[in-house]
């Protein structure tokens, strides 16, 4: 075997190893989802969705947690979407290369890496205590909004960056002002990308547990929130609570709730990917 053949062989071996590694994560994910499906799918019925929590596993449902999650999702969207997109637009379209923009940039990149539980501590001190919101849906949503703000900003910037400069040039050259150009050309053209980022960020918010525990979301709340100041629970906390119960019935419940939670996250991710592909095609 000469050196070229040897190199070719190594090349082939690495390729196989690469495929193995790539599939490793996915296979595990599949095994795991399969396992959860086996554990939980039988437990899912309409009653499981509409039942309140109960001491008996068979009678216990996810109604309050699901409603809590939906409340959190809506409030978080309302709070984080406008701020995040506005900040992204500012950074990409307005900010000049100066100290402030450098500071903003490094700051956002850092925020994106702050552990979620630290946001919980921030929320606990600022929203729950100083602003006296208590362990309310609003306090939870505010906390999660701050958590996903950097993600939305970064995604907005990426989407805006992908809009060809030529479109902007054309608009300016016709006498459009900066904001007219942004509003009429840049935002419509980057809408898909922004949407993708926002949905991904929200799907992250739906799955967050730790910051809400710190903020004080409750384990046993047998009613759905009816206003932003109500106490609440969310799906991940309900799951956490059930996981830590050793009776098999509750493990089954946890698995069933996980299926629902995964369904929500995967659907959100799917929608996001769909938008991304559609939007990328537009600019190719």
């Amino acid at each position, binding site marked *: 075997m000469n050196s070229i053949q040897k190199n070719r062989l190594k090349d082939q071996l690495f390729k196989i190893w690469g495929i193995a590694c790539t599939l490793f994560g996915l296979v595990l*994910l599949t095994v795991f989802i399969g396992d*959860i499906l086996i554990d939980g799918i039988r437990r899912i019925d309409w009653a499981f969705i509409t039942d309140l929590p109960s001491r008996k596993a068979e009678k216990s449902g996810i109604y309050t947690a699901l409603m809590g999650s939906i409340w959190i999702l809506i409030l978080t969207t309302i709070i984080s979407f406008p701020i995040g997109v506005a900040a992204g637009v500012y950074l990409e379209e307005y900010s000049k290369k100066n100290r402030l923009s450098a500071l*903003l940039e490094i700051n956002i990149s850092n925020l994106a890496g*702050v552990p979620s539980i630290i946001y919980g*501590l921030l929320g606990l001190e600022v929203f729950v205590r100083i602003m006296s919101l208590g362990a309310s849906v609003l306090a939870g949503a505010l906390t999660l909004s*701050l958590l996903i*703000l950097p993600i939305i900003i970064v995604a907005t910037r990426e989407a805006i960056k992908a809009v060809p400069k030529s479109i902007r040039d054309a608009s300016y050259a016709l006498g459009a002002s900066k904001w007219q150009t942004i509003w009429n050309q840049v935002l419509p053209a980057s809408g898909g990308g922004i949407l993708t980022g926002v949905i991904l960020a929200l799907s992250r918010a739906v*799955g967050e547990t730790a910051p809400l525990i710190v903020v004080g979301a409750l384990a046993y709340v047998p009613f759905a929130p009816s206003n932003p100041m109500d106490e609440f629970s969310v799906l991940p906390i309900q799951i956490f609570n059930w996981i830590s119960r050793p009776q098999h019935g509750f493990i089954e419940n946890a698995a069933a709730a996980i299926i629902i939670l995964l369904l929500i996250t995967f659907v959100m*991710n799917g929608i996001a990917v769909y938008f991304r592909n559609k939007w990328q095609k537009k600019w190719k």
Partner: protein
Amino acid sequence: MRKIKELVIEKSLLSSALVTIAVTFGIISVLAIEAFRFFSEVSIFDFFTDTQWTPLFTDKHYGILPLLSGTLLTSFIAISVALPVGLTISIYLSEYAPRSFRKTIKPLLELLAAVPTVVYGFFALIVVTPFLQQFIPGLSGFNSLSAGIVMGIMIIPFVSSISEDALHAVPKDLKEASYGMGATKLQTAFKVVVPAASSGIIVSIILAISRAIGETMIVAIAAGQQPRLTLDPTVPVETITAFIVQVSLGDVQHGSIEYRTIFAAGITLFVFTFLLNTLSYRIRKKYQEKYE
């Protein structure tokens, strides 16, 4: 008129951007103020040298080391899983895989990072630990090994995606120059592409470490809740994050020492991740300049 409108818009957009500064300021001051109060009661020397962490008991010790060791141990295990696998994936996807395969596999892999962490906790506790106990008889029900492994699986996409982006960003003409001289893909990958993308790869590793250190639910569920200064991966440990969760599950009254301990633990965690994030940002900035 128009000028004023433009100005108003610009300023309101700017204020949205400034919210992020306020958030950082909020985080730092909240952590610092409470931690300052904490350290007015507890000597900072003890905090870093005492080997016991029992702030909730009558015999109180405030040594962060057991929590730190728990955090680092689980993170180390996670990185040991995520690094080789993630790097191989990134090289495979960017240099070998057909584009269509890459396009389907990448979002699927990213799904790994999209799964809520509480679900991974479930996986670690209910599936992985019992599975590992078949091979490791002394393995406790709570341990850093399965928590670390599962966390590693979760952060694979962090390593693979960012590294892959970096590999992908290596100018095509460099690769072509190498192919053009008769190099195989493997040679091109390791001799040209990986070195050229090294800063991006390093960034991905740092971010993955930072993510592992800050991860909460997996360790809170599966690694245990006992602060213990050990490197033994088979026994229960407690991480900084798990401690915060543990305390938060009970009543934390503002002004109490319990309340302050979670902020003291929090600021330790924050400092670690802040350093890592800043480092990765610096490196990233540097290599972006190189290719732009």
